[in-house]
């Protein structure tokens, strides 16, 4: 069992500690393992450290502890490679989509990986295809609705062919229809996923495994079904049953 795990380990965080420059301690020894194909929800109250943890996984934040992505240890030198493997999608799509057109935004990742022009174009097309938005190729980013932007945002990291998709609050701010479209998309994508969310119905529907964080620590990591039934535990950590 252990061997299997190490071979297709996608994320391996060991005892991660981190404090912000202003002194605020955000992570107190976080350890987490994800294997290929895992679909994991990350839940917890605001300030629990979810975003902080995610920002460590592609090296934007630099804490104390071991981080391995796809079996490769995260160091300053191999940051570019790591970042191509970790597809991090931020909560606010206006931060994620910073180019004038959809095409340029989705092309940004593969372009900065140094790929040749034809390859970049091919990747853009396949990423847009994967999120079912091929017709949006030449659209102007500021014309899109929130739901459309969120799906394009996913495409902007898919074009790098990452090993894992990490999403921060993907369903926040979406109307029911856009939310349903997003859920269907996430269900279909055959890629390892770590999704931070407050949307417990989303967790119940899509993610067999849930990691609960509170106050900079992981307080529970196990099957979603079990966790969602433990109402007292949920309330203790600022969560509600869906």
């Amino acid at each position, binding site marked *: 069992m252990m061997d299997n795990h190490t071979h297709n380990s996608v994320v391996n965080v060991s005892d991660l500690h981190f404090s912000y420059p202003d002194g605020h301690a955000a992570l107190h020894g976080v350890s987490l393992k994800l294997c290929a194909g895992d679909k994991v929800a990350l839940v917890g109250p605001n300030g629990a450290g979810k975003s902080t943890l995610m920002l460590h996984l592609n090296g934007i934040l630099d804490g104390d502890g071991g981080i391995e992505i796809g079996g490769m240890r995260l160091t300053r030198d191999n940051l570019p490679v790591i970042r191509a493997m970790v597809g*991090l999608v*931020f909560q606010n799509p206006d931060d994620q989509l910073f180019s004038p057109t959809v095409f340029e935004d989705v092309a940004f990742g593969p372009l900065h990986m140094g790929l040749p022009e034809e390859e970049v174009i091919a990747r853009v097309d396949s990423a847009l295809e994967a999120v079912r938005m091929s017709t949006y190729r030449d659209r102007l980013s500021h014309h899109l609705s929130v739901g459309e932007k969120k799906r394009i945002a996913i495409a902007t990291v898919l074009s790098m062919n990452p090993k894992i998709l990490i999403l921060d609050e993907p369903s926040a701010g979406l109307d029911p229809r856009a939310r349903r479209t997003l859920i269907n998309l996430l269900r279909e994508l055959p890629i390892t996923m770590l999704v931070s969310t407050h949307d417990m119905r989303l967790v119940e529907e899509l993610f067999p495994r849930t990691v609960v964080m509170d106050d900079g620590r992981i307080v529970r990591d196990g099957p979603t079904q079990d966790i969602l039934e433990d109402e007292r535990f949920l309330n203790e950590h600022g969560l509600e049953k869906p």
Partner: protein
Amino acid sequence: MHSDLFDRYHHGHSRLHHLDPRVKVIVTLAFILSNALLPDGAWIAFALAWLFVIFATLMSGLGIGFTFKRSFIAFPFALAAITVLFSIPGQPVTSFRFLMWDLTITDAGLLRFVSIVIRSWLSVQMAILLVAATEFPKIIHALTHLRVPIIITVIISFLYRYLFVLTDEVMRMLRARQARSGAAPGVRSGGSVAWRARIAGHMAGQLFLRSYERSDRVYNAMLARGYKGELMTIHPHRYQKSDLVIGGLSILVLFMMQIAGRF
């Protein structure tokens, strides 16, 4: 509903719309340059230039009056040139008294004034057509192809992308300010100019900080997608031969205008 205010692009499928953006930018600049080089009173050349504008407008499929309707935007600036009516020596056309001055409009002055206004009026129409028939990101690409330094075109790209986001924020702030700008009956409201300026300044300061913090988040998003400090852009534009033909013909016409203007 807000973004339309800043979108000068009018969608279409005309030949002008599909013309390579580099050609369009070059021809527009050449046209404006040609106007600047035409001497005062070169009526035939001015008329040819106007025909050029009309022809281009027709080619855009946006309606023959499209640029005409929008061309008066620079007219207030014509005031700057008014003094030229009186200051260039020549045969007097008419005299009148204005406040404490005796003013005489001369023929040379009139010629000069009208020429300035016409040049400006023609040039602005071409500029209007350029952005009406070309999506702005394509214009940015054309600028990059034409060797404008990448850092400037990238800043322009960001400006364009976040213009709408930020002006939304400004409008929200202005609406909030309006909502709080009540008046009690019988009391003169509004505060002093200095106070109003302070509020405006605070709004600017707040907008600045939000923008600064947003730029941090955008920077993180760029890092997450592999940005290492070096700017890379991709603009797959393939021009067709007919684009070059149209461009070449246009330059030729401009040359003819120059010749017409000097004889």
